[in-house]
């Protein structure tokens, strides 16, 4: 399955800042799709809002550790389906309060982009 309308990540990071914005938009879109996938199993009042400022995990966050683990697996799958290679979002302990990658939607999108930059050739 490919996510329509998303520019390939590898080409995006090599291009202009406008392309970087479009690349971030693509990552955000996959994050929102993953949120939608997870929301199906949550009661209506606990469903996660699709917004950059949404707190995902940690104090005030919606997800418990099981929810976060499910979310990570769904997002990893979507990233692989969209970009054609695996991304390990658990390289750092996702439950650790010090890493904070999964604190908000914004921090998660930044983290995924950083992982992209660390790939050989400047991509994931």
């Amino acid at each position, binding site marked *: 399955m490919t996510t329509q309308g998303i520019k390939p990540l590898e080409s995006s990071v090599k291009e202009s800042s406008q392309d970087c914005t479009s690349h971030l938009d693509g990552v955000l879109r996959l994050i929102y799709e993953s949120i939608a996938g*997870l929301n*199906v199993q949550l009661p209506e009042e606990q469903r996660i809002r699709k917004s950059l400022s949404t707190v995902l995990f940690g104090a005030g966050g919606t997800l418990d550790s099981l929810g976060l683990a499910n979310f990570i697996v769904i997002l990893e799958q979507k990233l692989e389906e969209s970009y054609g290679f695996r991304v390990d979002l658990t390289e750092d302990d996702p439950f650790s309060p010090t890493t904070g990658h999964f604190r908000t939607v914004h921090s998660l999108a930044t983290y995924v982009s950083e992982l992209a930059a660390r790939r050989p050739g400047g991509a994931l």
Partner: protein
Amino acid sequence: MARTGLKLHLISDFNLETLGHYLVNSEMGPQLSVSAAPFGQVFPALLQPQHVEGTDFALVWTSPQKIVPGFTDALNHVAVSDERLLAEVHQFADCLRESYKHFRAVFVVTWTLPLHQRGDGILNLKGQGLRKRLLKMNLELAEQLQDCAGIYLLDGQRWMEMVGKSAYSPKLWYLTKTPFHADVFRYAAADVKAAISAVLGASRKLVVVDLDNTLWGGVVGDLGWQNLRLGGHDYLGEAYLDFQRALKSLRNRGILLAIASKNEESVALEALAKHPEMLLRVEDFAAHRINWNDKAANVADLVAELNLGLQSVVFIDDSPVERARVREALPEVYVPEWPDDRTLFASQLLEMDCFDSAYATAEDGSRHQSYAAEKQRELSRKQIGSADEWLRSLGTEITIQESDEADRVRVVQLMNKTNQMNLSTRRVSEPELQAWLQHNNRKLWAFRVKDKFGDSGLTGILSLEVQSGSAQITDFVLSCRVMGRNVEHAMVAFAARYCQELGLTDLRADYLPTAKNKPCLKFWMSSGFLFDERQNRFTWPLSMPYPLPEGIKMHRPPARAGASPLSPRGTLRDSEDASLSVFTD
């Protein structure tokens, strides 16, 4: 994990919380409250379940290597005998049977291996190949539980295959002790809910199907039956034929078929009769409405003719306009979205879970014949004109037998499936009914009905409880297939005579209203019993004889071995029942 409605208890050796979320939060199917035993303690949870009073169902989902320790050896290619593996399967089956005492039904998920587990490669299904052994273990478990009617095996392998290679998630396992991707639990939750609906008797019983571009390709009124796309060396013709094949297999399972089509009736019927590749002929359909009327009105009309409730119906039509119309006018009818791609028609139908039934009985397979007989009956009613004369002409014979193990499956099925003519809508499992009958002031009879047009089989149930000189009818259940033929009155007459001979003073029936059992109220209002509206209670003073309807013969065969010899006061033995004045032989 909580919500309202029915209660389900999860027992597993891994983390099933995600499944619980899907079960509780999915809007589809029955609403559930879910509890879970601490994971990893399967055997204690089965043998001595804690805090499960009032819990309806249990779901048991385990890993093969945890329950069958010998299978760990097999996984590690350490020598282990088949005998040891199967002995460990037997122990598990014994525990499942024990757990069934606490629940109305127990669902057990079959064992699976992750798709990435290659096992023994090309030797997987040879000798002591890993997958062959797992198949044997699953088959042995199924065989061991075969006779336990309230334990059902759910096919876990299907869920894995639906999700594909990502079904098993090592990451989720290491992070949370959950072995499967959330999508596996999504499919599992749907199947568990379908299983619960099946046990509750909520399965659909009738498929109403359109003709043009649904049962065949093309518009018969424009093309003529000779030019329809059906069968032949044509990919779409084959797809339509496969769809008919899928419908026919449903029919053979006891699901009724009917037609609602906007067409000239004679033209459509000619196509059904003459097209050489037509698999479904007019006699395969319990009823049809082929005219230019509103489809929703036609569906409602068909349902009335077949004596079913709208909640029993599935409507299939290629036209989104007709689907929207029926969905809007008859919200209880299930109208699935139907694919535009005609090659998907058969698979779409075969995938539907709303026909799942918890029981398979001889009557299921012959249901169509029964409805064909009903058509003949209706025809004779119109010809004769007078209702009384028609009823007398049917030559109805009712055979009454105290229920025993031989008919218990059918009795429980009828109790759990019947909505309309059902006094108390009591839903029970076999063990629950067995336990209820253990008290010697209770009796339950099964009524088999036939007439000159056909044998409807076991279609009625009446149970009584006697207390302080009065008898209370607990269950009064009659299949819609025989409603309106005075069988209801005959059943009451039997109960009244039975109670009179015991010297009881009155016979009572408490009506418990549901959304669907108004026909039952209507019958009791016409029964002649005194009605206390405050308590919804009908009473017959047994000082008066209750009239047996004219033209009905009642028989009672000798009691089968195993039938309860108990009578309300211990004064009337089964053998003496045959002398009751209602019997004609």
